[in-house]
């Protein structure tokens, strides 16, 4: 009785459904329930890893909207996160703003900087844009480092951020953070999905594919590009801000180019232009060092060649990126879709457009 194939769409509403395929309508609620129930296992290391993943998802969704959907390659993501972190630290410590004010403030500042950066970025495309954002990254980090060394005299290097309190309840525990981060990550994913399902997302895709044609279709290309920069910067600042509270410390040295590349890898490996893919990519890249660690731990001690194995961890990120780009350029989401397809059409080898009964 319900529409049997997602390929056959008979109305606009149908096209914009959040969960177009039937299996998704079962899987996603199950996933949500499972995630909520996970703390009962009592494995706080797992919860910590999931917290890191949620933080990564927030930032990665922002980058995907800018790079995956709108096609603007940005290497400056880490600097936006740095802005979020620093504004939070300064707002929280120097001005005493509470958590629920400092975080939105960071997002606003991040959005503003994204706007400022987006304007000159309109001039560039492709690799020139990447390098322009790279230059901007260094400029911002330099400014923040100067601030840190001249205004903060703490020898532990960086600004300490005290645990946030939400309506009187202090978030100090991994489990507390888990629920908050899960909620924010889910909200971010929903936000991203909503943006992509509307005219905004379609305009972005048009710009990514061929922006001259998009302009002839009447799309205000500069406005949409700016919007992409602003949204992505705001989300990055959100991630940076929450990260500042979560880790408890903010240092300019922590926001490196490697971090920006890591996020870019999350977007690419997850699948550019797919928010669900970004979640997978964020989880994958966050857990990768731990997985390599685990594999290294399984090797007998003699094989580990002392500490050389740790060098391999560093190289693993690069190897993974290359492997994905060569063999699975559409990302993890493509693997997932193939899997879903396989189960949906089994035992048949291809899907019909309209099912019989």
């Amino acid at each position, binding site marked *: 009785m319900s529409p049997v194939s997602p390929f056959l769409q008979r109305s606009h509403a149908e096209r914009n459904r959040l969960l177009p395929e039937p299996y998704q309508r079962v899987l996603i609620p199950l996933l949500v329930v499972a995630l909520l129930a996970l703390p009962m296992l009592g494995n*706080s290391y797992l919860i*910590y890893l999931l917290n890191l993943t949620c933080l990564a998802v927030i930032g990665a969704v922002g980058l995907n909207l800018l790079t995956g959907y709108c096609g603007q390659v940005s290497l400056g993501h880490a600097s936006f996160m740095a802005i979020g972190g620093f504004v939070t630290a300064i707002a929280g410590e120097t001005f005493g703003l509470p958590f629920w004010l400092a975080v939105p403030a960071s997002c606003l500042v991040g959005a503003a900087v994204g706007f400022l950066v987006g304007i000159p970025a309109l001039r560039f495309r492709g690799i020139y844009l990447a390098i322009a954002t790279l230059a901007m990254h260094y400029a911002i980090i330099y400014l923040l480092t100067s601030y840190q060394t001249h205004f903060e005299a703490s020898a532990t290097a960086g600004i300490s951020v005290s645990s946030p309190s939400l309506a009187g309840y202090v978030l*100090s525990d991994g489990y507390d953070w888990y629920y908050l981060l899960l909620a924010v990550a889910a909200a971010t994913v929903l936000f991203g999905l909503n943006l992509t399902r509307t005219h905004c997302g379609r305009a972005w895709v048009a710009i990514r594919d061929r922006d001259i044609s998009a302009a002839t279709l009447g799309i205000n290309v500069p406005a949409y590009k700016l919007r992409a920069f602003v949204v992505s910067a705001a989300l990055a600042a959100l991630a940076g801000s929450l990260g500042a509270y979560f880790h408890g410390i903010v*240092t300019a040295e*922590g926001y490196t180019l490697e971090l920006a590349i890591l996020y870019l890898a999350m977007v690419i490996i997850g699948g550019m232009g797919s928010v669900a893919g970004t979640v997978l990519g964020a989880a994958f890249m966050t857990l990768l060092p731990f997985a390599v660690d685990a594999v290294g731990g399984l090797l007998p001690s003699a094989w580990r060649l002392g500490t050389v194995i740790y060098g391999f961890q560093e190289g693993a990120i690069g190897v993974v990126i290359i492997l994905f780009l060569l063999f699975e350029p559409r990302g993890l989401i493509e693997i997932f879709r193939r899997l879903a397809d396989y189960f949906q059409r089994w035992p048949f080898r291809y899907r019909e457009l309209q099912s019989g009964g």
Partner: protein
Amino acid sequence: MKLFTHLLTGAGLALAVSLSAGAGSAEDIKIGYVTDLSGPLAGSYTPTWEGFELYMKAANDAGGFNGNKVSISLDDDGLRADRAVAAAKKQFEQEGVVGIFGLSLSSTQGPVLTETRKAGVPVATSFSAILDALPPAQPYTYSTGVVFEVAGEAIGHLAQRIVPNGKVVGMTFDSVGGRAAMRHNMEIARKLGYSWDEVIFPIRTSDFTPFAQTAAGMKPDIVVGHYGAGQNVGMIPALRAAGYMGPYIIASYGASEVTAEEAATLAGSPDNIYMVSRYVPGTADAPGLAALKAAAEKYGVSDPNSMHVTGWVLGMLAGAALEKCGADCTRDKLDAALASAEIDTQGLTGGPITMTAGDHYGPTYWGLYKWDGEQLVQEGDWLRRDAIEIPLQQ
């Protein structure tokens, strides 16, 4: 690609396994060690780890502590705070370690210590140390390392032995620790009647010539370098090429005699290269080195240097505390043992390592060494600094 997907699944399974792990013989004493083994400073932290490991291996060979052997869980943090925290959590939550040792750069230590203090896990850091161990000492935090402020002052005093007065030029890179060290160095230098100038350069610089030339242009009587091993190797030859042939002090935040040797080779001459270090180089005349060298030879570590000694001394602290802790060692017992530790370093530094309830760092001894072309030779006696003399700037 199918193979690729299989590889991914394999890695995922390995991760899942590690999450549920908790292996090791039930009677072993489990301790953890987290440090930078693959990042930019691995060159300094790896030998420190090796020294620590050698001590523990030797101790195990001699029967362990209270009849139990030590098993160390080693993790790499790549100089990233979040990985350091994750590693520490894995160690104390899943593997049930009684204490964590090592840690890496001071900027990664803050978040780790926050978590370990919450969980009540004692941590003793190696050569990178932060003010937390100094009085009033934070709980569960100890260090046998080099606190920037203390080192800066020590160097300020020791410089007098080389050049009694004149102009000191301090060089550092743009980091909070380096600047802190310079600040204290400067205060002492000024108090002793020197004139002071400084050069601060970016952390990530690859070419040292402009900074060396600036420093040389200041016509110093002595130059002090407050940075890691690598920068010394680049700066000393650059200074010589820029025309400065006078004395240069390597401040040992991770530098060892290997640094001095490399720098001397590249500079073309071994003259006027000094080092201030808390621990002796591998070629010194200390009785404690005999055990270290024996272990090094047995386990295939060639040419132990002062960084190995640093790790070994941390091992001594850990070992003494574990011994004192008793047969069923718990975290609080280990913490108590560390807080009352009194280690005879057998000449590896100028005096014993003494911890008290309010001071988890203790008085430190700093030696001035001169590179004579073959090895570092100590000049004069050890300089003692008591931790209480540092005014805390918080």
